């Protein structure tokens, strides 16, 4: 377990997440992709904190902020899903025709 191996794992998670975001049609599945990408980011931040910072607490704060981004993204994202579904009965990106105009 070195800084490089951990960062490589983070890169894989980021890549899978990106693939998911781009390929999925459903709102909720797209959010899953984002979360997996943020998962990779948190791992990378943890690795850099562990191996290169000497335990500087700000590195930990960075991970907490990444988690916060995830929570905000999830809460607002789900709320949008509910609102769009209620108003338009749509649950995929293609379902909202208005966005194409």
């Amino acid at each position: 377990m070195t800084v490089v191996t951990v960062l490589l794992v983070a890169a894989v998670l980021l890549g899978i997440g990106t693939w998911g975001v781009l390929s999925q049609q459903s709102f909720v599945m797209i959010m899953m992709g984002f979360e997996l990408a943020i998962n990779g980011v948190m791992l990378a931040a943890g690795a850099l904190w562990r191996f290169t910072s000497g335990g500087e607490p700000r590195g930990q704060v960075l991970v907490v902020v990444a988690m916060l981004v995830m929570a905000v993204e999830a809460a607002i994202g789900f709320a949008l899903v509910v609102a769009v579904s209620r108003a338009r009965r749509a649950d995929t990106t293609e379902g909202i025709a208005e966005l194409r105009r």
Partner: protein
Amino acid sequence: MTGTWVDIAFGVFAVAAAWFGWRVFVTDSMVRATFSLLASFLNVGAILVLLLAEYLGVAMFFMMGVEMTVMAIYMVAFMMNPAGLNPMQMVHQPRVAVVVGVLSTAGFGAVALAADLDTVAIVDPDGTIRALGHELMGSSMLVMQVVGVTLVATMVGAVVLSAASGRFGPADVGSVPPAIVPGDDTTRPGVDVGGDGGGHDHDHGHGGGAHGHDDGGDA
């Protein structure tokens, strides 16, 4: 635990994190997809514990457990075919997506390999939680209070968007066209209530689409 065991554990958790992450997007069952993502998070949490970020790793279990439970609710409510009983393809631009995914992995990985990162040992591995506490109450205090404001904004936004009715009646009054027949929600212009209506005209073969909207019972 000695170094070798840490390496072995890291390998297991790393493979599991990636494998579960991949399963999220290939399984048909929405609940399995959600909890595969949770499993990926748990493995990353375990790696964080191996990285001596004890608090962050364990907190990951906690936070992601809650977040994925909520996620599961929305997956079942807003995906047609939650259990994956009818296999279906819910993707677009699959080739582009794979290429971009591989490229981003390669790019990020190349940065990791190329960057000449000096390894610095952690000064006080037993004091990491206390150090984080002092940081949050000290120089990162502003971060915490800004986070507080952000979270309030998030909560208000989420309630505005998701609550069906506020104190002043239905939340979407005025934002949707009125029904042709008064009181009949299904005759509203732009509302698709047919079994195979315009909103779902892509390539997922299933029969339980739009009419499933109102099937849910009360929890």
